[in-house]
């Protein structure tokens, strides 16, 4: 579904080589997590995949088609969640807008908007404006918007950074459920190694700059996951430890 090959990105202004050479693929309906040190180029990668940034070299293909602009039926949750919400719209309108664009009929739209807002715990705040919400609430609005959109490909950039531990666990399970139900191909950037292991079927570890794929790790945990049991599996701890060491290696290089 998603093929990244030889991807390289140099930001002209400062002459920063954000990505040197990335190659990996995500199959249809797969959930892959991306981890890497701060500033290694995860956001850059996501923007290239989303067709928002033109790569310096290499290519990205979605469903076999080279990406030149944002592909259809793709949803993105941006790291800068605050800026990705339209301040002139209420929460409900923000979530509803892409659905209107997709020409989802009214009834179904209301169902989707209501459902996704309830799922992220914001049913009460539907008529507030984004700037009347706390940071975590804003981030959840952005997630609700992506979820309601029912995308084929879902890109998320540290989507749970601003919420508390318990909410985070709930949202992780929400994503897992939706991913299973809708079969979305998902690329998930996170800093939380536990989260990467818990959610991902595979975890791509990026090195620090000059950025390459350090490891493409298969998560061989049982497909059915559960916050308590999965996290307490010995294999979970193994994988976690391994990834931790990898990231430390990634950072140590610089």
């Amino acid at each position, binding site marked *: 579904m998603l093929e990244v090959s030889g991807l390289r990105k140099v930001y002209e202004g400062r002459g920063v080589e954000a990505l040197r050479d990335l190659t990996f693929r995500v199959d249809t309906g797969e959930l892959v997590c991306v981890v890497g040190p701060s500033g290694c180029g995860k956001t850059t990668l996501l923007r290239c995949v989303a*067709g*928002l940034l*033109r790569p310096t070299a290499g290519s990205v293909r979605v469903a076999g088609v080279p990406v030149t602009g944002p592909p259809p039926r793709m949803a993105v949750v941006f790291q800068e969640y605050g800026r990705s919400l339209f301040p002139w719209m209420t929460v409900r309108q923000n979530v509803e807008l892409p659905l209107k664009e997709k020409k989802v009929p009214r009834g179904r739209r209301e169902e989707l908007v209501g459902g996704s807002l309830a799922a992220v715990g914001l049913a009460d705040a539907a008529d507030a404006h984004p700037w009347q919400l706390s940071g975590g609430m804003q981030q959840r609005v952005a997630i609700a918007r992506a979820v309601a959109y029912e995308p084929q490909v879902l890109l998320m950039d540290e989507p749970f950074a601003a919420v508390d531990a318990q909410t985070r666990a709930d949202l992780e399970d929400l994503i897992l459920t939706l991913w299973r139900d809708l079969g979305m191909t998902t690329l998930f950037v996170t800093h939380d190694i536990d989260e990467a292991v818990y959610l991902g079927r595979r975890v791509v570890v990026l090195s620090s700059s000059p950025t390459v794929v350090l490891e493409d790790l298969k998560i061989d945990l049982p497909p059915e996951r559960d916050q308590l049991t999965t996290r307490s599996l010995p294999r979970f701890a193994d994988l976690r430890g391994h990834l931790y060491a990898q990231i430390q290696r990634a950072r140590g290089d610089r």
Partner: protein
Amino acid sequence: MTGHPRATEPPERKTPAGPGRVAAGVRRAARRTLTAAGVPVLLVLVWWIHSTVSASFYVPGPDRVARAFAETWFSSRLVDDALPSVVRLLAGYALATLAGVGLGVAIGLSPRLRAAAEPVLEFFRAIPPPVLVPLIMLLAGIDDGMKVLVIASGCVWPILLNTVEGVRALDEVLSDTCRMYGVRGASRLRHLVLRGAGPQIMAGLRQALSVGIILMVISEMFASSSGLGFTIVLFQRGFAIPEMWSGILLLGLLGYTLAVLFRRLERRVLYWYYGRGGDRA
């Protein structure tokens, strides 16, 4: 919206070295000239065809105007009439910038001052310059000082309004950051207010540039005996229509030149603003 300005300029891909680079530069310059000249050339063509089809005393053809332009302006007139006008224009513009930004910042920062000053300012803003000029003449005489003041009195509004709105719209988190770190007074002004309101202030300055040229003409309709605007009015009254149009042409060229210079300046001052858009696909 791939086309909004920060994204329009396509990111320059690889910068080839050596002669290739020069060639690319030449090509870029040529393309830029072509985009800049395309529409004007088209418009002149339309004008020319129109004037050959239906000749009118008040709308002479481009050839007549071009001839009048050469005869009228390639002479000492350029120095005697145009130059003093431009100097007055720049003086008035500078004055308006000082007053507009200064007052605008004060008003934008203080809701009370804004409440008190707004009706008075709106009052003066609605008074047409042609009737304001006699009043200014009462106070400032009839010489260059008056003309500079008239220009400033017109230019100041776009600058003032935009500054006020720009200051009012400052990012709250940035304001709070300044308050926390004790960034106050002049330093807050310099580092937060003027920079943060910069894009909107620039919009105002841009507006004011052409307003200034208009006011330059109007100011010279009073108590004058020379100047670009005066000459145009004189041509108009003397029914020297091609000459009049050539003067208008000169005004347009003046405006265009100033705008180009202004754009350069703006790109420098607001580099962070235009840079922020980044190189997007």
